[in-house]
């Protein structure tokens, strides 16, 4: 049965030549003369990160051409809404917080001008620098209320776990405006990461990308145990592109350890896992692929995937998942909720 679709991870970009128009001085002149600052990832992406079949005969790429994106993704899959999540996760690794804020502002304005106007099905998240919460709040205040602005972008590359009070001004603004936070990996922004795996710095994109779940575990545990969801009872987080098979392990472990060490998080009024079920959702892509495909179904049941997962394609990146990636054996109700209903409720999409 066909279901309506909400795609929670679609990557738009900005062409290099557009930057000067969207940056304020002094960065406008700087970028016009020297181009955007380069940030050494230090690892090799897979040929720029995109699928090999997405450029049209003229060599145009869908991440900087909305008409192509619309045709290849939205019209092909019947996407009701596509959440634009950008390609500037490296902003997390920019130590100059003023430059990062200018970059985010320019990228947001470009997205509004070019993408949101191209099709009402495109919804965007506000890019913010995470190094200066006051500047981040300014940008949220500037753009909250736009009818196609539906969330705020976070990047999983930081030296400060997300539960800590450093970020709370951002959470206050998000909660006040009803904007969920959309967490996407940027673990390969090496300068923002003390380590791209819990064991140390990964050597390759392959290693770092597998390690996203480690990064996410740290953030999830921090968010719950530091009491963020007690302080901001309406705040919501979407954990995107970090997998989900690891979630039961962390929930079980949090609940178990909390029973003995409750005094280290005395502000929690419920078991930690209950906060996750109420406030956090996990995106499907990249879908876990066990040796025997049917082995994924017990994980769906354990996680209560029917209620906690939201579909994401990651288009046009090379590890794209079509909606057909959901496992066989899933009920029609579960399929509909994961492909559409859960995201509609979470992001407030009518």
């Amino acid at each position, binding site marked *: 049965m066909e279901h309506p679709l909400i795609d929670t991870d679609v990557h738009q970009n900005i062409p290099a030549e557009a930057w000067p128009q969207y940056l304020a001085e002094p960065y406008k002149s700087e970028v016009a003369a020297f181009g955007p600052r380069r940030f050494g990832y230090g690892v090799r992406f897979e040929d720029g990160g995109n699928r090999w079949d997405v450029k049209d005969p003229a060599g145009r790429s869908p991440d900087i051409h909305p008409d192509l994106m619309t045709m290849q993704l939205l019209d092909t899959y019947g996407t009701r809404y596509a959440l634009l999540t950008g390609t500037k996760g490296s902003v997390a690794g920019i130590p100059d917080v003023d430059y990062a804020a200018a970059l985010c502002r320019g990228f947001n304005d470009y997205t509004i001008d070019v993408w949101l106007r191209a099709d009402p099905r495109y919804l965007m998240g506000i890019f913010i620098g995470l190094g200066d919460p006051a500047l981040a709040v300014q940008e949220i205040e500037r753009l909250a209320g736009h009818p196609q602005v539906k969330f705020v972008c976070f990047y999983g590359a930081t030296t400060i776990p997300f539960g800590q*009070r450093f970020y709370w001004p951002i959470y206050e603004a998000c909660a006040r405006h009803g904007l969920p936070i959309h967490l996407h990996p940027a673990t390969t922004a090496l300068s923002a990461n003390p380590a791209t795996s819990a064991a140390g710095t990964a050597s390759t994109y392959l290693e770092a990308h597998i390690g996203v779940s480690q990064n996410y575990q740290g953030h999830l545990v921090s968010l719950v145990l530091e*009491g963020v969801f007690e302080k901001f009872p309406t705040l919501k987080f979407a954990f995107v592109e970090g997998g989900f098979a690891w979630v039961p392990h962390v929930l079980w472990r949090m609940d178990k350890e909390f*029973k*003995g060490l*409750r*005094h280290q998080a*005395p*502000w929690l009024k419920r*078991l930690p896992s209950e906060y996750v079920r109420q406030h956090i959702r996990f995106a499907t892509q990249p879908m876990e692929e066990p040796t025997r495909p049917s082995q994924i179904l017990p994980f769906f049941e354990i996680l209560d995937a029917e209620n906690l997962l939201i579909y994401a394609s990651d288009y046009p990146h090379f590890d794209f998942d079509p909606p057909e990636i959901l496992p066989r054996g899933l009920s029609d109700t579960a399929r509909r909720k994961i492909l559409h209903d859960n995201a509609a409720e979470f992001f407030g999409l009518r």
Partner: protein
Amino acid sequence: MAWQLFSPLDAIVEGKFTLVTFGKRTIGVTRLRGALHAVLNYCPHAGAPVCAGHIQGYVTSTGPGQIGYDAERKILRCPWHHWEFDLETGEGGCAGTGRIKTYPTRETDGAVWVDI
């Protein structure tokens, strides 16, 4: 339920459990700020001898970043995994921990009795 002679009163130590076995059950009794407390020496989590744990107050909070301490509450923490149980009620310190078994006590003629 029946009242059983537990021990002479002077065998009970402030803040530490004195253990007596009745059939298959071992019961611990201690005195805290004048009041006697009797509990089954068995943690509902993993069967640990809960009376070998520590007796503390209860860490409280009115919200994130706010930490208080209720020194009046009497919390027995299991020696194995440090789960918390209220000595007055037997209730666990958070959801999912169940409760320990508690018993009524009384003092009569220099002896401690427990209603088992």
